[in-house]
């Protein structure tokens, strides 16, 4: 069987680092396990549409772990990296490859929500820890929440919820929602709807083009006919760029204020040029957060990767902190389930996005920022919602 001698990407980070720390600290609790490396399974997209996200998450996470001495709880790390291709049909096989065949202690991943849902089930079956550094499907920490599943990023509902309040505060009474007809879109729309209607606003219509179509004209004509006070949209990447340009070209931008989660503008607002001008978005991060840790992080990331840091890099960085702090608390003993869960549940992470803790459903309780594009740059306007937690509806732990 040729598959047995398959090559793997195993990179050892920090092999020669932190010797002093290890020498001064020898836990007696499990002296044997101390010698073995912690196997960290990284299942992220390194090819395809989300490749850039996968790389940013991985690089920032490793950067953070190396900053912390390159070890987890005194143990060296063996990274086992696997490209998940953002392919849900292969999700379970890939996850079980890392957990069953390669016997990884902890699984980290991924970007695509469908793949993450598959991973969550495999991790549960194998009774292993799963740390999600991006995928925002609300079900992951609601219906599917479990003791050994943690998310260091966001839920799709979370960045959207404060946006409704922002729109109300700006004096808008009616809104049209336009999003791709797919789960991330529905969940984001729900967040906006929850706060907007609670505050007395009215959603006139939801327009749902099919994913990933970028043909928006029919919807724009509907918006023009409905004349709402404001529009909330969820698109990302190519769709976001095209939508902003189409919205502007249809003459709607000047008349109807556009809102969205930060994914609308992140990474593409420069390409959109004047079409992005004035758009308000809410997200758990903003490039120009004025804190030492954010500045240091951005500079270091740029220095190491030659790329600009983004929200995904921040999530990767925080995943690194999450692993460092949790495993330090149990001296690297990943088998100490209860102690590790307890350590992680009580964790407090100083992040470039601000300090955050975890909710009962293992989801960040974090500040959501309001940003606006003006004069070609995305500027932080302030905090739209302080310490927001996902409701965790349906989670048995919440």
């Amino acid at each position, binding site marked *: *069987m*040729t*598959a047995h001698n*398959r*090559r*793997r*990407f195993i990179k050892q980070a920090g092999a020669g680092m932190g010797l002093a720390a290890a020498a001064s600290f020898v836990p007696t609790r499990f002296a044997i396990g101390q010698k073995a490396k912690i196997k960290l399974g990284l299942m992220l997209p*390194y*090819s395809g549409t989300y*490749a850039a996200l996968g790389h940013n998450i991985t690089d920032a996470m490793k950067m953070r772990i190396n900053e912390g001495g390159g070890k987890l709880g005194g143990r060296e790390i063996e990274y086992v990296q*696997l*490209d998940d*291709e953002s*392919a*849900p*049909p292969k*999700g*379970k*096989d890939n996850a*079980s*490859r890392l957990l*069953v*065949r390669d016997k990884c202690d902890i699984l980290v991943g991924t970007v*695509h*929500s*469908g793949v993450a*849902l*598959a991973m*969550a*089930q495999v991790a549960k079956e194998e009774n292993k820890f799963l740390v999600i550094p991006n995928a925002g*499907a609300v079900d992951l920490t609601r219906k*599917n929440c479990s003791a050994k599943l943690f998310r260091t990023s966001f839920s799709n509902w979370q960045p959207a919820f404060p946006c409704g309040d922002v729109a109300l505060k700006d004096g808008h009474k009616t809104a049209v929602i336009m999003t791709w*007809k*797919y*789960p*991330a879109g*529905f969940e984001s729309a729900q967040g906006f709807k929850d706060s907007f209607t609670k505050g007395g606003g009215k959603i006139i219509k939801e327009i749902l083009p*099919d*994913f990933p179509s970028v043909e928006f004209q029919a919807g724009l004509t509907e918006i023009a006919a409905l004349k709402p006070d404001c529009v909330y949209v969820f698109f990302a990447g190519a769709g976001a760029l095209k939508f902003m340009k189409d919205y502007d070209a249809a003459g709607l931008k000047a008349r109807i204020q556009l809102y969205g989660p930060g994914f609308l503008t992140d990474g593409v607002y420069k390409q959109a040029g004047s079409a992005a001008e004035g758009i308000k978005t809410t997200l758990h991060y903003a490039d120009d957060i004025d804190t030492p840790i954010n500045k240091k992080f951005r500079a270091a990331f740029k220095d190491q990767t030659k790329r600009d840091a983004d929200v995904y890099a921040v999530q990767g960085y925080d995943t690194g902190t999450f692993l460092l702090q949790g495993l330090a608390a149990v001296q690297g003993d990943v088998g100490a389930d209860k102690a590790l869960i307890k350590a992680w549940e009580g964790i407090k992470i100083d992040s470039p996005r601000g300090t955050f803790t975890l909710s009962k459903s293992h989801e960040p309780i974090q500040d959501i920022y309001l940003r606006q594009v003006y004069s070609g740059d995305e500027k932080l306007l302030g905090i739209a919602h302080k310490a927001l937690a996902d409701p965790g509806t349906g989670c048995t732990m919440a």
Partner: protein
Amino acid sequence: MPHHPRIALALLALGAVFLAVFPLWGDTFYIRFIARIMIFALFAMSLDLLVGYAGLVSLGHAAFFGLAVYVVAGLVNKAGVTSAFVLLPAALGAAAIAAAAIGWISIRTTGVYFIMITLALAQMVYYFFHDQKEWGGTDGMNIDSKPTVMLGDLKLFDFYDRVQFYYLALGCLVAAFVLLTVILRSPFGHTLVGIRANEGRMRALGYDVQRYKLIAFVIAGTLAGLAGFLEAARATFATPAHLGWHESGHVLMIVILGGMGTLFGPILGAFVMLLMEDYFATLTERWLLIMGVFVILVVMLLPDGIAGVLRRVGRLGRRGAGDG
């Protein structure tokens, strides 16, 4: 009808023995992985009936596979049905009905038209599930439970047991191979191949050509549904990607790689293709580039696939024996 060259039969027998004993020492991950390959072999074999024997090049075959996956997902998650006695007939039935409908529209055309129409109709099924909010949309959904096989309180078969499931997949593969071989050796099979060779002549001889094609299409679709049922039970995950045209192209490639019109070719093709993908995917992030080049090389240099190579080797071997 299928002539299995001696060397292929020998290889097949050897392979069958290997597969039969593999779980005795194989690692659980690979037991699961080879089960997946066998499911794809079954899937590809069903397509070979259309492509290799009936001359119907379908680029929408994944629709039946994926539909069966979704039927299982729907019944388990939405209706709480887990009995395989319900799930299997439902999955096969849905695949058969879909194949009858899509086949009925498609077989009125031939050649390029047939390729494009099967593609477009399968995409319709794809978009149907793609847009269903309740079914997980683009994310897909976990299937809450594997099928159960109970006789009263007695558990007859355990889908959760990887080894048992492995042998089930192997059994289905062998059964499908035997079934298709029997079908193709029957008068029905001879007529099908006759239609492929000269449709006009068969029509002149009074055969209802369309009926034969449609029956072949339904048989193939149903077997693809069986593969889908097994995949649903194995992976317990349903996603629109299961029915997309990339999956259809992928399985077509497996048929050609192995050698169409041979039945055993798709089995070899599935093993070579899936093991290769697995290998390249862990080797480099640019593995799709390698796969693309590989596909093109096979098309240009090995139009008869691995089976064609074996046939040539076999012929050489026989000639050598005759000389001596």
